[in-house]
């Protein structure tokens, strides 16, 4: 490919290669935050190894004035700070791009490429000159490359300095070191390199009323605001930070001012089986409770999930998906748990699942999940993933309506029980498939035995086929009815009438929107539908019916969403075409564009109107 000719201002991607555990994370955060403050749509993806210290780690930043900030595998600039990964890092730069490296030692000649520009700054030497301690030299090298990038990319220096002073506040010595490192990197770049590069930043005003937050923090906040009082969990990447966030919010906002005691119980369980049981014990007893886990935890929780479904106990389960099967790749992302979640546990089960697309929806879906769990008396899953959960996303500011009150569902308290002649736990007295429940401790009249063994509509043990089937059929109806109550699907119509459809869920959203725009440029107009929950809302089947062909995008090998649409939305198999992406990195728009083009060309080998000349981010 040739050097891009179009204007690259606010339209490029770069990648920073460092060593895990050397403090580069805060430098990268600083950089991304500064770009965000300049009002430019930006994303940062942390591609880290399952390791505490010493292995290569990467941070990818993409800016795009049109808001297309899904991951792209093409980098215009590589900040190569880790000699161990030089070879692969340098190879990843697009032709015509740049490599910024530490020139304290010369690069091995074999690494050089003549189609990219090498920008050397002697970071290690400069650090040795400016800083005394070994640890400080390591840390400040990171801040120094931020200084250099500030000059090379045209980041506003004032913004960077302001962020540092907000971070370090009164820790003057630390602040001074950081200022020095920034300045040294900045000045050196300005003095020795052609600053700024053609890939450069310019202040925009695209992000008024936006925030930068990760999905786990936002989901934790949702639990706090929804009134959850019991959290039970077992540590697992990438969900751990959600509980950590919940704990720190709770420490502040759930303290009884008079006694200093907490209005929350956070139970670190011995494993995920126990965590699931604790959630059910707590919700059975009338508290709002949740757990956060990832795929391996969901596998362990399955037995309890089936109990909750059958005995009709609410519970909110966050699954921050990572790459499976088994331990898989714990620090990589995937949408691989979809099928195992919606049908979790043995026997006939089916579960309500909400699939947020970004941290903003992690917050809103978390709140919705508690309401749905109590309304439908069943486990509800919030199916997030590592990309959403652990990366900071630019999303619209979170809103809260102070008139919101939780939907506690159909619960009969002692007074209400007085008015009924006889309480029967599983009776569908309203015809909506949802029976009434009672809470322990209220009145002997409401007492019943919660059991996962066969029971009839009165809650009595049974082994009688019709009595068993009666309850099972009602359960099926109950979950079906939930389709109308899951968060509404998002429709993003094509600019022109379209016969092609695109369906994707969760974190695939941004890549699909970008693909939709790029396909339109090629003359392929496609409507995009994003279901937000399961069971599928009725518009999902309608969308498939209304299009000649619908491409279903899955971030897993087995096209789980595709199959779920066939099984649960009645989609005719021949009208769907599957596109999968599952290597562990977030979905790029390329995967969708390529998938659609391949299918379109196979079906009707006509030239698309325009060829892709340059598909730089």
């Amino acid at each position, binding site marked *: 490919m040739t050097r891009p000719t179009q204007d690259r201002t606010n339209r490029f991607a770069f990648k920073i290669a460092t060593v895990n555990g050397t403090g580069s994370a805060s430098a990268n955060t600083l950089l991304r935050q500064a770009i965000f403050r300049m009002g430019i749509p930006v994303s940062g993806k942390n591609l880290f190894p399952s390791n505490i210290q010493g292995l290569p780690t990467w941070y990818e930043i993409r800016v795009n004035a049109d808001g297309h900030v899904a991951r792209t595998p093409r980098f215009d600039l590589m900040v190569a700070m880790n000699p161990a990964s030089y070879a692969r890092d340098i190879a990843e730069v697009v032709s015509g791009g740049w490599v910024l490296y530490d020139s304290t030692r010369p690069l091995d000649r074999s690494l050089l490429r003549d189609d990219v520009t090498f920008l050397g700054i002697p970071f290690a030497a400069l650090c040795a000159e400016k800083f005394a301690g070994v640890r400080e030299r390591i840390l400040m090298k990171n801040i120094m490359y931020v200084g250099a990038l500030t000059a090379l990319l045209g980041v506003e220096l004032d913004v960077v300095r302001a962020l540092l002073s907000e971070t370090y506040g009164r820790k003057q010595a630390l602040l001074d070191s950081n200022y020095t490192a920034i300045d040294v990197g900045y000045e050196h770049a300005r003095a020795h390199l052609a600053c700024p590069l053609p890939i450069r930043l310019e202040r925009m005003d695209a992000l008024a009323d936006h925030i930068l937050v990760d999905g786990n923090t936002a989901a934790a906040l949702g639990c706090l605001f929804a009134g959850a009082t019991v959290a039970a969990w077992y540590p697992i990447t990438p969900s751990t930070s959600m509980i950590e966030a919940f704990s720190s919010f709770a420490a502040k906002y759930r303290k009884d001012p008079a006694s200093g005691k907490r209005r929350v119980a956070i139970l670190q369980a011995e494993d995920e089986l*126990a965590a699931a*049981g604790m959630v059910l014990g707590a919700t059975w007893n009338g*508290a709002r409770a949740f757990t956060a886990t990832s795929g391996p935890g969901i596998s362990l929780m399955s*037995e309890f999930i089936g109990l909750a479904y059958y005995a009709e106990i609410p519970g909110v389960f966050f699954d921050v998906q990572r790459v499976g099967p088994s331990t898989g790749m714990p620090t990589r992302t995937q949408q691989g748990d979809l099928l195992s979640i919606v049908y979790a546990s043995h026997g006939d089960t089916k579960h309500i699942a909400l699939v947020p697309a970004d941290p903003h929806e992690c917050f809103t879906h978390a709140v919705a999940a508690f309401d749905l769990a109590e309304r439908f008396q069943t486990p509800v899953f919030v199916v997030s993933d590592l990309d959403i959960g652990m990366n900071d996303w630019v999303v619209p500011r979170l809103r809260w309506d102070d008139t919101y009150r939780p939907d506690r569902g159909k619960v009969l308290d002692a007074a209400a029980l007085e008015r009924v002649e006889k309480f029967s736990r599983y009776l569908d007295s309203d015809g909506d498939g949802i029976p009434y429940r009672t809470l322990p401790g209220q*009145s002997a009249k409401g007492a019943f*035995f919660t059991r996962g063994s066969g029971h009839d509509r009165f809650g009595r043990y049974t082994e009688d086929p019709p009595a068993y089937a009666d309850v099972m059929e009602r359960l099926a109806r109950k979950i079906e009815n939930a389709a109308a109550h899951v968060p509404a699907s998002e429709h993003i119509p094509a600019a022109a009438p379209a016969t092609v459809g695109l369906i994707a869920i969760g974190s695939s959203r941004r890549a699909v929107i970008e693909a939709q725009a790029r396909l339109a440029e090629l003359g392929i107009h496609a409507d995009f539908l994003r279901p937000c929950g399961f069971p599928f809302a009725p518009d999902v089947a309608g969308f498939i019916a209304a299009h000649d062909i619908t491409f279903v995008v899955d971030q897993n090998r087995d096209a789980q969403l595709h199959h779920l649409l066939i099984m649960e939305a009645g989609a005719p198999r021949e009208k769907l075409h599957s596109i999968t992406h599952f290597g562990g990195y977030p979905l790029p728009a390329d995967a969708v564009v390529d998938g659609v083009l391949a299918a379109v060309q196979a079906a009707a080998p006509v030239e698309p109107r325009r060829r892709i000349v340059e598909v730089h981010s």
Partner: protein
Amino acid sequence: MTYIAKPRVHHPSLPKNALGLTRRDYEGSMSTLCAGCGHDSVTAAIIEAFWRLEIPPHRVAKLSGIGCSAKTPTYFLGGAHGFNAVHGRMPAIASGAAAANRELTYIGVSGDGDSLSIGLGQLCHAIRRNVDMLYVLENNGVYGLTKGQFSASAEIGSKTKRGEANRQAPIDPVLLAISLGATFVARSFSGDKAQLVPLLEAGIAHKGFALIDVISPCVTFNDHEGSTRSYQATRERDVEIVSADFVPPAEEITSSYTMGDVAHVTMHDGSMLRFRRVADGYDPTDRDAAWAYIQARQAAGEVPTGLLFVDTSVPDMHDLLETVEAPLNVLPFEELCPGAAVLDSIQARWV
């Protein structure tokens, strides 16, 4: 198994407790266990203990896992909510339930398979969390409900009905609990109601996790010659070390000094545990000594029973979590949701 409701006819002459309730009010539905099963005797003792303690049935939550033993909560306290969890996982349900509402009385019933094999981890961690509950382990040395396989409490040499001898060392719940830091550990025998009832009462009054290991013979699969958990074998080997007497708060005894060979432990609710040392020098408040003594007696082939260890000074789960006094499940939403203004202030850090 079918559900058999017991006719609730009240005989005027039945004694009533202070709530005006008779023992019948503490019963559940009719047992469907084998005639003579030890578990039914434990059920009767539980009914007696709750009646004596004058706890309104609806203020109790009764929980269990899966097994013959786990069925028994259906047979007592019909006015209490019950929860049959999954096999071995009742402690998790109990922990979550207790977290949500600290005001109810929690009783869990488990078997030795439920507690010592599939659920061993959960038992250990419930002990560590010191969940405020009574945990009754109905110990028959076999898996009753799956028809007689050895459980992890079967002793070396114990024989199945078909004559095979167990060759693996047993897990002893009492020694295990004491070594894990349990705060109340007792052992009894389903056939000894006089000993079991006050122990159950004391276990309920104890603030924290109270484990009572009840040797409860399985007449169908483990009551034959060669079994070490049969009625016969247990009667022969049962040696009472400490005889406990439970004194409810109303009859409070002011002195907590040792009177002769009788010692008193004041429970959190003001009730008193009066225990008489049957064995010379046995001190159920000395963890190391208790462990060593029980270990030695068991090595000698005895089954020491009674109140084996108690410590009322250890914080329970809620103390450890520093939760508010009010049950979490009744806190008004206004106290839980920080509101829009706080949401804005939190987000000020994210711009």
